[in-house]
């Protein structure tokens, strides 16, 4: 194979700018989606452990729907189908007047999808706590919401830091699918650089390294958080 390596292309104008702009979109998209995934996912995880039938059923249905449909299909559904199902005025607004329609659609899609996975982690975390903790909290006069807020959730979130790290990493990697609906994030920009310069190896190497840097930073900060919030005497912790 004959290939003319030219790493210099990565720092040339406008390609450097394209990469950085792609990086910015990847970060904005992933972090905004994470806000949805984390808050909605926590609510869903909690609902799945409640003794109340309706919230539990709704949350279960949500999880099964969103984690069983491929993310790529969900991207297309949100972008091409959902606007048609909305009331006419709202649909028109989404299609014509909403700023950055691809970006916000991708945020919602990725956020809702990841929420179903986060919800399962939160549920697993809550259910791994011995029931006696909840009973003890109720016995001191705390209401069930207080027992969740003050005892169960602080414990559950500590227990699920490792699997939540995976979900957080996944959201950055999954954000690359947003290119299919036209978000110019990191992968899309790399492809564009390849199209313009035929230097695909350099462009995708740069993207790979940038993804690695992001995920390493996430991993290290989650590890730092885990050691800060470690529960004394629990399995897998040092005393």
């Amino acid at each position, binding site marked *: 194979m004959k290939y003319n390596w030219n790493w210099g292309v990565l720092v040339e104008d406008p390609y450097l700018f394209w990469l950085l702009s792609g990086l910015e979109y990847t970060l904005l998209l992933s972090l905004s989606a994470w806000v949805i995934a984390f808050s909605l996912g926590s609510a869903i995880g909690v609902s799945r452990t409640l003794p109340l039938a309706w919230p539990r059923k709704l949350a279960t249905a949500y999880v099964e729907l969103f984690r069983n449909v491929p993310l790529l299909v969900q991207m297309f559904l949100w972008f091409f189908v959902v606007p048609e199902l909305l009331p006419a005025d709202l649909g028109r607004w989404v299609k014509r007047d909403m700023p950055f329609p691809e970006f916000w659609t991708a945020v919602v899609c990725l956020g809702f999808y990841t929420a179903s996975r986060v919800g399962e982690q939160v549920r697993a975390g809550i259910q791994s706590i*011995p029931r*006696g*903790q909840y*009973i*003890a*909290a*109720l*016995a*001191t*006069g*705390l*209401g069930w919401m*207080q027992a969740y807020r*003050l*005892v169960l959730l*602080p*414990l559950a979130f*500590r227990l699920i830091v490792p699997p939540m790290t995976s979900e957080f990493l996944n959201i950055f990697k999954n954000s690359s699918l947003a290119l299919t609906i036209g978000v110019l994030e990191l992968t899309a920009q790399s492809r564009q650089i390849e199209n313009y310069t035929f230097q695909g190896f350099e462009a995708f190497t740069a993207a790979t390294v940038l993804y690695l840097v992001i995920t390493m930073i996430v991993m290290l900060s989650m590890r730092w958080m885990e050691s800060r*919030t470690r*529960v*004394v*005497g*629990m399995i897998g*912790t040092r*005393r």
Partner: protein
Amino acid sequence: MIELDKVNKWYGALHVLKDCSLAVSRGEVVVICGPSGSGKSTLIKCVNGLEPFQGGRIVVDGVSVGDKATNLPRLRSRIGMVFQHFELYPHMSALENICLAQVHVLKRSRAEAEARAMELLTRVGLTDKARAYPGNLSGGQQQRVAIARALAMDPIAMLFDEPTSALDPEMINEVLDVMVGLAREGMTMMVVTHEMGFARKVADRVVFIDEGQILEDAQTEAFFAAPKSERTVLFLSKILEH
């Protein structure tokens, strides 16, 4: 103060409590014993509504526990409870464990709650462990913190559900000493335990329960000297011989 009138409870088809009637008056200490699976833990958990029951009535300080309109959290905040497995919150220090419900249920200020917590830690002999986490405390120490946590709510009565069953033999006494102290001060107590020495020392009455039925409810001396039911005689012969 605590009255149970013909309480019945089922787990599905299993009839776990059968017409249980019992009264504990103010300042009284009642020990409940019986073989495992007899329903004694279930019975004591019905008193503060942690276990629902299907028949009969339980009234605590004039409040009907089974009544739909009853504010259970409010009632529970007035009854202290201590568990077999301590159930301290592992992510909080001993001090925070004792303060949590004081702050969030009784709405005491942080400073007030901590002052009360330190007072109680002194009382159970653990002043130096205020900042320690449950994972770094021995079983006996954890149970004493759990007692302090219950006392911090200034309860009108205390429920103990096998408080020493999960402890090493060496640690049983440090917990029993605290309980004896409480009993002598006139705290109303319902204690599920097999510690017959404790029963003899401070109990006013001893109740024997088997297969969900209260078979014996007698003054302490009478209970040990002349039990009425044969099942009680058999039970006592087995646990007192050692």
